[in-house]
């Protein structure tokens, strides 16, 4: 059986048969079949692969994919209260405008001359994140928060030459699994307990687990379950006392109102850029950042690219270049460089830069304040529903909170199913990842939720749990 091609395909200029013949003649070949002469016949397919028939017209292709996407119920048409690592914030139109620009969208690994704009934009991104975080060094983004945290741990391990890390019991299970996989087999992660009422890290348990082998402590602010960890300074001091490092994961959308971790002793700060101008896109908007002080011992442990500003041969002209490139696996040392580098999430770094430049200091502060107020309102109103505790953990929070349904006769799964009937996506069911909490859900309220929408949620929950 012969193998057929697709002539005159709009994406393949040289699929025109006459052009192919001309080019083949240049090579002294007769047909496309004469190509791949180096692949052994025994390994070659003898017939076309088994695929659905191509949809040749762009119009029909578009209809086909649109029809598939229409099978989804999305958070634009429904009222969404899911967060848990991917949050629904407003994306300023200017963010999409810039990241849709073909020049940025389709660039890749060009040099600092012809990809000058890519270098400057990412340098500016690093610089604005540095202000938000109050630290001097920020990387070109990595994959996501989990990867940024995992790499932060590996960096801390190399800096301290120690292999034991302490992490909170109350953290995202998926993130823990990613960190555990990336840090294995050599670095161990030990869980530190928490105060049952507040969720705050149990510093007595921390003290008991700290030792001369401790590379560092990792904790988050706000924590995965939304509350603010208030003992940042204490925790950092404790780990510093045994010669370890303080590594803090942070939600950057909180930093207009919350103290940046560097101010309470964090040595390495990491987190996710998704809240800063990225759509949720079913988890496709994640991008990780890592920040440190500008000290050689930290900078030289980054596996990521770091873009720096440099002079050029012309006075008054800005230039950009890779800083300490040979650290990376792209340098001369390959596997002896720091971890590995490659394609990561640069376009989201560019977008986060646009977002921060657009928001400015005032925008970030107001964003934080709005979120705080709406959260506190939602907690107050949900708490009025009989049998529902709207804040399972008593510590103040930022944009997420744990709603406790244990005293209702319904499971979170049942409640969420009924909420979907009202076009509401209820909070994340925590019963699998945190069985100790029983039937609890993690709710997220951001600046996009209006009072009316929060009231709508409250009424729906009240009706469901009372029925």
């Amino acid at each position: 059986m012969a193998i057929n091609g697709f002539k005159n395909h709009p994406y393949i200029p040289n699929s025109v048969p006459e052009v192919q013949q001309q080019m083949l003649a240049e090579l002294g070949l007769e047909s496309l079949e004469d190509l791949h002469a180096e692949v052994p016949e025994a390994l070659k397919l003898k017939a076309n692969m088994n695929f659905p028939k191509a949809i040749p017209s762009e119009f029909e292709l578009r209809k086909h994919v649109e029809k598939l996407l229409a099978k989804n119920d999305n958070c634009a048409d429904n009222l969404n209260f899911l967060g848990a690592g991917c949050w629904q914030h407003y994306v300023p139109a200017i963010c999409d405008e810039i990241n849709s620009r073909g020049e940025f969208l389709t660039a890749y690994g060009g040099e600092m001359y012809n990809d000058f704009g890519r270098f400057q934009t990412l340098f500016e991104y690093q610089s604005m994140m540095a202000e938000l975080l109050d630290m001097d060094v920020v990387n070109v983004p990595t994959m996501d928060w989990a990867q940024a945290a995992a790499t932060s741990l590996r960096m801390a391990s190399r800096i301290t030459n120690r292999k034991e890390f302490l992490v909170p019991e109350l953290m995202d299970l998926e993130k823990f699994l990613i960190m555990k996989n990336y840090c294995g087999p050599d670095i161990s992660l030990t869980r530190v307990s928490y105060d049952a009422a507040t969720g705050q890290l149990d510093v007595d348990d921390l003290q008991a687990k700290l030792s001369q082998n401790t590379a560092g402590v990792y904790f988050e602010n706000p924590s995965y379950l939304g509350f603010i960890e208030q003992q940042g300074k204490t925790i950092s001091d404790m780990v510093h006392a045994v010669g370890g490092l303080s590594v803090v994961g942070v939600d950057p959308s909180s930093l207009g109102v919350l103290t940046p971790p560097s101010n309470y002793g964090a040595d390495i700060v990491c987190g996710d850029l998704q809240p800063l101008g990225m759509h949720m896109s079913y988890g496709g908007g994640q991008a990780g950042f890592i920040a440190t002080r500008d000290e050689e011992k930290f900078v030289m442990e980054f596996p990521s690219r770091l873009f720096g500003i440099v002079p050029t041969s012309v006075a008054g002209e800005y230039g950009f270049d890779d800083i300490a490139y040979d650290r990376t696996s792209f340098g001369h040392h390959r596997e002896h460089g720091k971890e590995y580098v490659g394609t990561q999430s640069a376009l989201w770094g560019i977008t986060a830069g646009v977002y921060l430049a657009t928001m400015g200091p005032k925008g970030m502060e107001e964003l934080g304040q709005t979120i705080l107020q709406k959260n506190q309102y939602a907690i107050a109103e949900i708490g009025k529903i009989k049998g529902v505790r709207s804040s399972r953990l008593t510590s103040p929070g930022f944009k997420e909170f744990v709603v406790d349904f244990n005293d209702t006769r319904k499971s979170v799964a049942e409640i969420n199913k009924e909420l979907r009937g009202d076009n509401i996506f209820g909070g994340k069911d925590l019963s699998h990842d945190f069985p100790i909490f029983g039937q609890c859900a993690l709710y997220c309220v951001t600046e996009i939720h209006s009072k009316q929408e929060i009231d709508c949620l409250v009424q729906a929950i009240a009706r469901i749990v009372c029925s």
Partner: protein
Amino acid sequence: MKRIERSDKVRNGFHQAKWDEPIIFELSQKGERGIQVPHAEEEISAQIGDGISAIPSNMRRLVPPALPEISQPRVLRHFMRLSQETLGADVNIEIGQGTCTVKYSPKVNDALGRLPGMTALHPNQAEETVQGILEIIYKTDCFMREISGLDNFTFQPGSGSQGILTMASIIEKYFEERGESSQRNEIITTLYSHPSDSAAPAVKGYKIIHIPPDENGYPDFEAFKLAVSEKTAAFLVANPEDTGVYNLRVQEFTALVHKHGGLCGYDQANANGLLGVTRAKDAGFDMCFFNLHKTFSTPHGCGGPACGATGVTAALTKYLPGPLVEQHQDRFILNNSNTYDPTSVGKVRSFLGVAPVILKAYSWIMSMGAEGLYEVTKVAVLNNNYMYKKLMEIECVDAPYIKGKQRIEQVRYTLEKMTKDTGITTGDIQRRMMDFGMHYWSSHHPFHVAEPMTLEPTETPSKEDLDEYIATLTQVFKEAYENPDIIRSAPNRSVCHRVDGSGVDDPKQWCITWRSYLKKTQVN
């Protein structure tokens, strides 16, 4: 009027956009703002107060972040200008970023990726509310299976390198379960495979062994036989390697590793030249990854977000990171059994990976079908060999290994003769090609081919485009012999002039952020 003479293929009048744009902080004007954000309703403020008072005082930010204060038109103009100073694939003939498979990314797919049915999906939504995207992921999985012959794919890895890390993690778990972790601590790769084939497994603690090329550029089988042993955990390799040479004895390599109990992982970053021609499974591989942002057309985004779809045989499926998307009758479900099984990898990336990239790759494949994918591959190889023949006719160009035989997806050339004759290096040529609006790439470090030049046309340039790139290179090589100063001083028509990188390795001088630059360059 007289007809305007414009027959020269080389763009001697080119100049890239140069805006001399300040750093964004220099645009700041106190009081300006780029956007207003929503405020809490008055009833909420009346009931709750300012919200901030509820934060413990030690956790309140007292000094606002020193972000620039800029009105929206100025923010937009700034980033528009910076975009124009970036040479994306949309605006140049993409041949010069060899090994990166930078091909045309159809606009319709980007438009589909921006629909609310994609962008407004939360990854924790209930299965029944995301049937569309799950169907797309599942069907793309089936496409990858058909292309590779393997049995199950994960789309979590955010790049080829993370795909390699995932393969290394699967290898680790496989031998952990068999109680052979401490014994099998070596991974074998080749000198011309991507650096990440060495670097990512090294994160997992593996000792890396590199097989050098033999006189024909194939991985040296004699050296390989000596390297494979009961210590071998796996063989991770690209084929063709970055030289464009296809290892025609690949089955003997994989068979030898299997004989010693090891696994074989295929770096398919160069798969664009092999779609519908030959498959990973048939060559004896247990796993592989494909770059959806390369072979399957999704845009590179200045370096991600992306996807390194990683597939395995049925026997290794239990080690894949979870969840896996499965079809049960007419429903698509998330199977999380792998995620929480401590004998599997668990997870390598949040949620299910970069879903819009999977969507765009799906749409691209649907625009191709089996016949289109075959055409892609045949034309990519035709383009590559056409360029190869034309460039080898230039006296100062050579390409080591398998003389007179075909290359697959790209060719690594050498300009050693030109450098010996003129002192002009491949790095100089790279900068000069920018003066014509073209990318050009040498090689990963360290250089194993002297003065390397790696070109990969893919299927999307026309013959005219190929001829223009060749004509431009020809002119530049001629300049190397006749007017080398113009090359040494290049770029002269790009965005900036020769950068002074003398401080980039010096902690006292490097400036990774604007605040650091202001501190280190303070004028007393």
